[in-house]
């Protein structure tokens, strides 16, 4: 009995030794990093170009994906009333919606084959849950959501924006720039590089990027959310005084 246990352990060890080099190889052949490593949203923030670089197994193509936390969305659905007027006809509640989804590739999706499909924007259809007002007309909600998010530049699916570097041994480098929109919400975002070779995923490498308010926007946001009454009164008082000041400036000008 003991002998058979030893044999099983020996086999397991051999298997692990066979697998382990592959795992370590994956670590050695792939990686990802961003510049900057965090997104600082100060008064001058107007979106940035996030530089992403890394390495993948030689000969791989790369799909780059930046995604944010999921949230629930309550939206209004527009439809035709009386066959004539377009107006709000109901509400739609969407759950599990990533607030950001930016995708880019080293090669057109059509050339990457079916293995790339789960990484496309359209694959979100399988993730997002929809609760539609039953009275409203049935429309392609995910399609309309994609249009809405693309309009805000929070969703984007680009191709050929990832540049592959020369092969060095068993690895090749890649680099890309992701256009981070100004409408990005503070929070943590995951940047993932998916390496695809010969119709299969051969590696996934991820890093996180934190977007955070700094300086005046941080102070103002804190005041608005944590001391909202004071913020509201301050906003009103400053507006009144600014209006009075401008009025007085005009009075003195008018006096001459």
């Amino acid at each position: 009995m003991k002998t058979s246990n030893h044999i099983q352990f020996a086999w397991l060890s051999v298997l692990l030794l066979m697998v382990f080099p592959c795992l370590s190889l994956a670590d050695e052949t792939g990686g990802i990093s961003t510049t900057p490593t965090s997104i600082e949203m100060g008064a001058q923030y107007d979106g940035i170009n996030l530089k992403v670089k890394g390495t993948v197994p030689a000969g791989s193509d790369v799909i780059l994906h930046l995604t944010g936390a999921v949230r629930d969305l309550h939206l209004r659905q527009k439809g035709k009333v009386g066959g004539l007027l377009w107006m709000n006809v109901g509400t739609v509640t969407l759950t599990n919606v990533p607030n950001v989804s930016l995708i880019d590739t080293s090669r057109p999706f059509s050339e990457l084959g079916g293995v790339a499909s789960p990484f496309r924007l359209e694959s979100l259809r399988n993730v997002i849950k929809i609760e539609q007002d039953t009275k409203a007309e049935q429309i392609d909600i995910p399609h309309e959501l994609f249009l809405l998010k693309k309009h805000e530049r929070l969703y984007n699916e680009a191709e050929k924006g990832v540049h592959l570097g020369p092969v060095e041994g068993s690895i090749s480098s890649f680099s890309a720039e992701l256009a981070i929109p100004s409408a990005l919400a503070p929070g943590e975002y995951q940047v993932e590089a998916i390496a695809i070779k010969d119709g299969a995923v051969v590696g996934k490498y991820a890093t996180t990027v934190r977007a955070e308010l700094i300086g005046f926007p941080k102070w103002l946001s804190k005041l608005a959310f944590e001391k909202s009454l004071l913020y509201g009164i301050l906003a009103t008082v400053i507006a009144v005084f600014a209006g009075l000041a401008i009025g007085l400036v005009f009075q003195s000008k008018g006096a001459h």
Partner: protein
Amino acid sequence: MSLTMNLYLPIAGNSVNCLAIFGLGGIVGLLSGIFGVGGGFLMTPLLIMMGIPPTVAASSDSNQIVGASTSGTLAHFRLGNVDIKMGFLLLIGGIAGGTVGVQIIKILRQLGNADFLISITYVLMLGFVGGYMFLESLQAMRKSSQGRHTAPSSKKESVYARMVRTMPFQTDFKRSGIRISALMPLVLGTLVGILAAIMGVGGGFIMVPVMVYMLRMPMHVVVGTSLFQILFTCINVTVMQATQNHTVDFVLALLLLLGSALGTQVGAKLGKKLGGEQLKILLASLVLIVMFKMLFDLLVQPDILLAYMGGH
């Protein structure tokens, strides 16, 4: 050296071009100064078009109207165009009407037809008010250019005029040069408040014609008094929105305010140069343009069939 004109707004969660916002404030302020309307029905949709979330656009607009109407009220006060007594009575009515209007909206939403009714009310109100003002002013301008004078005393007293004359609590409104029942501005203020709450706007563009045609106030006093009343309405909205929904972007409001306060001052002076009938016809044209834009939006299929909650 490149100087960026973009500024990040943490409450709106987006960055804006300072010059564009300043210019937008200036144009709307100009209209506000000339006509005594808050301009929310123009500003909010334009802010949404610039990428500001609808709820933040509407609340921040209220915040900037506080400043713009302070500046405008001051300018009109110096010109002797603010009837404070009338303004307060309209305001009390407006607040009561607004409270009733919010409840009506709740009931309509439960019945499921709220948005349809709001849209139709909006277009019909704008069309009626704008059309009536336009035609009436056109007739008055034609008459004055033809030099025809009709003595008001020769006209038969209308039922409305008789009703107004016989109402209790007759009060002198010296600034407006009229004597009417104090109940009139209270009742009319309430009705405008109800409509404004249903339509989700400040109500300046309804209040101005009401003051002109139903309270028979002179046009220049109407403008000053309307701005005075709007000031208090918007103070209330700003504090409420800041505390309950956290949707007031003060920086956005201040940028808009700088433009609009300047615009209001210019508008008040420009309005003084224009005759009462000219002012009415210009306001009527503005109201009709907004009505046609709304009608267009109702008739043409939108590019995206989903929209965020809030806004108009």
